[in-house]
């Protein structure tokens, strides 16, 4: 028992500290640097330690220190309790959701690289991740600020709309592989079709992948769907009144969200840690597979960032209209076609 707890703790420390927090911090740098490079600028390159700037990689650290020392401002008429809990409520769920993501294959029959090998599988991820909506909504509600409230309203309606599309896009995948357990989905994807093509989700469910990417961008509230925090209209949306570490939690939760949907996408559509032609228990094979998983996640992160710095923000009615009028019908269509094909196939 104690051993189980210790192992779980170790996995959490690795997952949360090393991967998620470090990853989110680095992503904040990636986002700034990448936008700069795309726009023919230089980007962050000033923060230095002993004169070393390392491409501005110290900026996230400097930002963190700055955030820690900023005044933690609470508006006089804010709902103190909700104002206090809202950032946590938006920060914790995406972290929890990672419990269902496998970072690598089982080693010697044990899930060393998956925190929770629960029977709920990826449903757990979907369920937990949706709780984050409450955090954003309550933050806007408790701030006693009309911009925050508008941001909160937009967040709840937008996230609610796209939640449907997201789930619909996943159903097809679950149907094709006949399971909701992540490791089983990955195992199913590692089969080869016609002897050479891995049965990855992107091959079997291409439309589902597009729908998934669109709705996951909307779920992470990023351009072109960043209406909840549209700076030009709402200052900073639901987080307008937040400062210091509370603001940092919102900030980090956005990047953890990006990591989450990218990892999720990698598991569902790109075979997770699977590398065609590689199997076995040797340590270097496992390392390669973990690396492959990270690379696939990274590629999806890159795609999301590219979209953000390419496409301008939509109007809010367009966002909601797109969700209901195109995303969901296409999701249903995909489901129908998948069901028909599967029925005929078997």
């Amino acid at each position, binding site marked *: 028992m104690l051993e189980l707890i210790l192992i779980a703790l170790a996995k959490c420390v690795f997952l949360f500290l090393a991967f998620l927090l470090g990853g989110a911090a680095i992503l904040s740098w990636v986002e700034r640097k990448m936008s700069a490079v*795309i726009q023919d600028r230089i980007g962050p*390159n000033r923060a230095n330690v002993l004169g070393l700037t390392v491409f501005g990689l110290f900026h996230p650290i400097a930002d963190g220190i700055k955030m820690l020392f900023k005044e933690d401002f609470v508006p006089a008429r804010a709902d103190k309790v909700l104002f206090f809990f809202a950032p946590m409520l938006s920060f914790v769920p995406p972290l929890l959701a990672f419990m269902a993501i496998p970072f690598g294959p089982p080693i010697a029959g044990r899930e060393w690289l998956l925190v929770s090998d629960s029977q709920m599988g990826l449903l757990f991820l979907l369920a937990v991740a949706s709780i984050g909506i409450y955090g954003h909504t309550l933050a806007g509600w408790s701030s006693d600020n009309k911009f925050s409230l508008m941001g909160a309203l937009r967040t709840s309606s937008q996230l609610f709309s796209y939640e449907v599309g997201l789930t619909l896009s996943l159903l097809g995948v679950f149907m094709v592989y006949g399971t909701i357990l992540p490791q089983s989905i990955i195992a199913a994807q590692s089969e080869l079709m016609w002897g050479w093509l891995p049965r990855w989700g992107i091959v079997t469910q291409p439309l589902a992948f597009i729908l998934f990417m669109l709705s996951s961008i909307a779920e992470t509230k990023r351009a072109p769907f960043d209406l909840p925090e549209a700076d030009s209209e709402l200052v900073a949306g639901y987080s307008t009144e937040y400062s210091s570490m509370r603001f940092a939690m919102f900030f980090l939760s956005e990047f953890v969200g990006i990591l989450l949907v990218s990892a999720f996408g990698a598991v569902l559509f790109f075979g997770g840690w699977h590398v065609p032609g590689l199997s076995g228990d040797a340590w270097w094979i496992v390392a390669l597979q973990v690396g492959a998983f990270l690379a696939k996640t990274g590629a999806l992160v890159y795609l999301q960032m590219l*979209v953000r710095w390419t496409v301008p923000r939509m109007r809010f009615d367009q966002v909601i209209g797109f969700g209901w009028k195109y995303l969901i019908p296409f999701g249903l269509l995909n489901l129908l076609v998948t069901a028909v094909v599967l029925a005929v196939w078997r």
Partner: protein
Amino acid sequence: MVAKVKNVGQPPLNLTESLYVTELVRGLLTTNRHFWRNWLRRKDTATLEYPDRKRPYSPRWRGLHRLMLREDGSPRCVACMMCSTHCPANCITIVAREHPDPAIEKVPASFEIDLLKCIFCGYCEEACPCDAIRVDSGVHAQPVYGRDEAIIDLADLLSRGSQSTSKQGGRSL
């Protein structure tokens, strides 16, 4: 008066453009291309890292004022008030005094420019008959903590001064 209206037409979208998807992909490819090109070779980067490296200013750039000097280091300015009269911001305040040398006769006892009012139009330089005031120092007006500090005085103006090549004084031809 009837305002002139020019209608600027919007070219109609063709089929692929109106599909949005193709244009979206094209956009993604463009940003992607910029990313990799700049990432690998920083070729198009336009940023100049300001305090370390500065863009050379045009010699006609108008910065902080300065008062030019005579050969003996005294101000060329004769307090004629052409500059203060001409100044559209009315920010130059000059008090004149007698110069012991009757050939020079008039010099400024005080010469103050309120940089908060100054619009750096350079009209003072244009107006000066003595090549005394110039705005070619190439120095920026610095931010200050109080309004009083934004008023520069004679000593400050002279500290940026140098000698002019033009002739001055009533003892020539």
